[in-house]
């Protein structure tokens, strides 16, 4: 298992396993996530995205199959807290995960719980705030922040634990375009500069297109996986999966069909403009 840090093998999860109304949320998932990966997971509601995410830090355990985080099996109860420290989580609604009355207290909460010394705790809080570019708000009351700022505080709370992985479950679903950009910029920076492995769940294909790998789930299975330019050009499959196609990719494919020499792998507006300028 050289360099493979999260390994998922034949993972299935069934809700209400001992009851009548069983729901199979994950169905034999196999996946390997490497150090420094920058992955987005897409899929319609009920495809199993959040269920998969919750397996990565022991919030859920497999019904069958296994998942290892840095060689620790999540079923091993003695490792639960070690795994949770390594795998930070950020959820959709920032108001549900902020608990303290000031920004810095909120970030210190996790550190206090694991008994970090005060001096070190201060350093970590300041470091985390600097990374998410919120240092000037450290004394602010969280409820006075914008949605994007609150999500950045939630991210700071997770990385202050020195997690190696960050799992974000639709962190921008409740944010407006500006807030979305703030969060995306920080997530990219964490991956690039702090070498934190990112697993990012989203409904927004424009966001997913910015990651180096995209995994599309459907009915608990991996339906598509690959680089964004490989995944997003499969327009018919994506539509069947009840997903959007980025506008630019759809336009590129249509123009390509009309005999115009534009790569069907075009994902960015800039690239499209450049190609079109050769024609008009």
């Amino acid at each position, binding site marked *: 298992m050289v360099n493979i840090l999260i390994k998922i093998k034949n993972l299935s999860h069934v809700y209400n396993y001992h009851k009548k109304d069983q729901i199979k949320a994950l169905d034999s998932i196999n996946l390997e996530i490497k150090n420094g990966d920058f992955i987005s997971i897409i899929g*319609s509601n009920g495809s199993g995205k959040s269920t998969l995410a919750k397996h990565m830090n022991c919030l859920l355990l497999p019904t069958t199959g296994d998942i290892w985080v840095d060689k620790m099996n999540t079923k091993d109860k003695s490792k639960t807290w070690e795994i949770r420290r390594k795998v930070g989580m950020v959820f959709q609604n920032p108001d549900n995960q902020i608990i303290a009355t000031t920004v810095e207290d909120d970030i210190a909460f996790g550190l206090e719980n694991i008994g970090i010394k005060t001096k070190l705790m201060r350093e970590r809080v300041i470091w985390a705030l600097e990374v998410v570019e919120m240092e000037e708000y450290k004394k602010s009351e969280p409820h006075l922040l914008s949605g994007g700022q609150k999500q950045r505080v939630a991210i700071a709370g997770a990385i202050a634990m020195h997690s190696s992985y960050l799992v974000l479950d639709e962190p921008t679903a409740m*944010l407006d375009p500006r807030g979305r950009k703030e969060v995306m910029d920080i997530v990219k920076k964490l991956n690039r500069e702090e070498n934190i492995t990112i697993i990012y769940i989203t409904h927004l294909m424009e966001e997913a297109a910015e990651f180096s790998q995209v995994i599309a789930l459907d009915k608990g299975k991996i339906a598509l996986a690959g680089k964004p330019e490989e995944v997003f050009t499969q327009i018919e499959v994506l539509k069947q999966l009840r997903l959007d196609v980025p*506008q630019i990719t759809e336009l590129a494919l249509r123009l390509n069909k009309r005999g115009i020499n534009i790569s069907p792998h075009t994902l960015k507006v*800039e690239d499209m*403009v450049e190609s*079109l300028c050769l024609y008009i």
Partner: protein
Amino acid sequence: MFIHLENLCFTYSLGMPFETEVLKNINLEINKDEFIGLIGHTGCGKTTLIQHFNGLLIPTSGKIYVEGVDLNKKGVNLKLIRQKIGLVFQYPENQLFEETIDQEVAFGPRKLGLPEVKIEKRVREALKMVDLDYNLYAERSPFSLSGGEMRRVALASILSIRPKMLILDEPTANLDPRGRDNILSEIKKIHNNFGMGVVLVSHNMEKVAETVDRLLVMHRGEIILDGAPQEIFEKHANDLVEVGLGLPQVTECMHKLKEKGKDVYTGVLTVDDAERVILKKIKNDKEINV
């Protein structure tokens, strides 16, 4: 005209330390059969504004008229106004509370004191409007539904009151792409088939712009743009970006082409529009060269 706002201002916590001026001098006219999108950055005052439309909030200063009735006046029958203007809040599925979908949708008409026969008719009609089969759904619990279905039931509970105008606050928030498209096309159908006026509040520019006929853009408590979506995307793209709303990818693409000196129409909303404009341009260029 159906709703008329005159110099409407609203301040939260007036005279208190946290006094915040949310709406500044809003003048607006809305006709009964319009399909309007109200967009703006979080905190710009969208929700505060629509809460004035049916008298949930009273303006700090200025006037609001619904069908000519001044809502500030003493003795106004607000109950009647709220029958005319149906307001669907954000995450309306949180308001579901009855045991069955039938009872849920019947709640409004029952409170209006209608006879049972009429109530049932209205429930059937409202569920049909949101594409839910009465026979399949009526006796189920609203809590056994998916997020998108719950939202449709919540919408049906407003439709059963038969409002003349429907106001929806972020009706597509947190739905997946299919759920979002379904809700929007149902709203469009309700508008087309029943002539109901609609105001759609959102910060999701892309889908709203291609659905509505008139776009209102709010920024810091003011309406800064008002017009057809094509016109706003063509002439005011910079303003939209400046207030943090962003443009659909295809619109951005056209504006970038224009910046590079290419003579293309920039008021595009959809991939269809963009394809048409580009193909036409290529064809024209060829003809000129020949």
